[in-house]
């Protein structure tokens, strides 16, 4: 992994992007890396387009500006593809992961992005409905993210997920979340 990895999350408020940005950062910390996670600050309205950011680094992170040239973009809601330029500033060899039923080649055709960058799609909402029984796509999206980028360790993520969930839920919910992560990891496709 390069020294600094920058992730930008696009979602609608309420889909858990801020939580996902945070949990990925916490997973990196568990591997003794340096990290930052922050929402794009503003008034919070359920359903409004929001951004969140995660930075992961082997060395201390000193910068505090917004992420303008992300290595990775995660899109939790494909209706945002119409209204937000999610590929904005993506690095040449970057990757965009989208929660959608649309095949990656079609999504790619709709985005203006570098030729070498990859587009990956997974039906994270469908997976979440199957497993967790609610359309909260953030957790399976991290599974897809890990498959594509290895930005954090899968086992470390799953163990942190269990730890966080166990504060409010039982083993059944932990298993459902783990299943959602595994399925997204398996089902994500790339173009």
């Amino acid at each position, binding site marked *: 992994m390069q020294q600094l990895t920058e992730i930008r999350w696009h979602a609608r408020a309420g889909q858990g992007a801020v939580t996902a940005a945070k949990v990925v950062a*916490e997973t990196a910390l568990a591997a003794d890396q340096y*990290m930052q*996670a922050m929402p794009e*600050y503003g008034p919070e309205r359920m359903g409004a387009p929001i951004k969140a950011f995660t930075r992961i680094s082997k060395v201390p992170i000193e910068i505090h*500006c917004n992420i303008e040239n992300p290595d990775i973009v995660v899109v939790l809601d494909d209706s945002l593809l119409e209204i937000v330029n999610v590929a904005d500033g993506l690095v040449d060899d970057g990757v965009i992961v989208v929660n959608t039923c649309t095949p990656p080649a079609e999504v790619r055709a709709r985005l203006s992005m570098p030729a070498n960058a990859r587009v990956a799609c997974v039906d994270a909402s469908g997976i979440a409905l199957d497993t967790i029984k609610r359309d909260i796509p953030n957790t399976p999206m991290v599974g897809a993210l890990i498959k594509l980028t290895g930005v954090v360790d899968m086992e470390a993520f799953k163990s942190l997920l269990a730890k966080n969930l166990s504060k409010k839920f039982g083993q059944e919910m932990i298993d459902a979340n783990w299943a959602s992560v595994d399925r997204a990891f398996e089902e994500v496709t790339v173009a």
Partner: protein
Amino acid sequence: MPEHKTLAATGNTVVAEAMRQCKPDVMAAYPITPQTTIVEEYAAMVAKGRVHTEYVTVESEHSAMSACIGASAAGARVMTATSSQGLALMWEELHIAAGMRLPIVMANANRALSAPINIHCDHSDIMGARDAGWVTYFAETAQEAYDNTIMACRVAEHPDVMLPVMTTLDGFITTHSIDRVSVMDDESVSGFVGQYVPKTALLDLENPVMHGAFSGLGGPYFEFKKQQRIAMENARKVVKDVAEEYAKLSGRPFDVVETWGMEDAETAIVVMGSTAGNTRHVARDLRAKGERMGLVKIRVWRPFPHVELAAALKGLKAVAVLDRAESFGAEGGPLFLETRSALYDAAERIPVVDYIYGLGGSDVKLELIERAYKDLSDIAAGGAAPAGPVYLGAREEA
């Protein structure tokens, strides 16, 4: 030796944590973005019995500081937090807290002042409180915000100081970003700050005293102010002594003026708060390319470390000051005025350029810092200094 625990936490979370570890007797606070999570999390800790503080919910910041003043005069260890309009609403109480020599510790989430309405970071709020007589720290990171809060407690209550202390952290940038922070165990922090034993206390009925009395013409008002000046001068040494002792515990050294790359620097940027990180990042890149740039970070704003700053800047060819606040009608922002004043006694005149940046949370892009360093290189090479203050990154050169 203390146990250190590494957390993924926001600046506000670790400020609330540091306050809990200092065990204040009273907290009176009113929520305001982006300070809210400090008082929210603190209130939750009180409700869960994790700290035994009398938590006073009030109807405004004016009342919050008034309650803090009353509690502190009564002999309690008192802490609070605010931001922006809230700090502005406290303005008259800030002076009273300092004039009554009450060692209140307050965190401020640095935020712009209206109008236009804006909830994001700049240092306008703090600069409005500049002359209120509070010792004032700035934090670059959540880690520094944690450390400063603990040190503030000791500085405020030191018998040679007995002044209120403000520890500031940049709104949203530091208050709300999750960062890697090392915290110490409760006993180590509590042991470090110790028990507050007030010299006088309104609740000490055996030894009655008067606080905040009238002092008319011919009264001691003037001498009270001189004593505040002396106390603030005393704080210079106390801040350093406390920091030295704290560094032994935390392993994190502290300088009132922190320098980077200054050993052979020809030019430098002077900055406070989170932008010091962005600046160091750019300076590191430029140094790798052979440019002789440095960074000077001010960690304590009051008392202003003019001697240390002048020493750090000695012999430079050009200096840029980054001001995240205005002083409309002055020659530049508040930090610029201090810096140039600190350099007045320098043997050789050093050109100093002021850059106003990041007002209302305007993003501090690395290219803006690069532009300031580029200007410095040009000046060092014999070019003319730009007329300041330069509005760094403003969308049009209005």
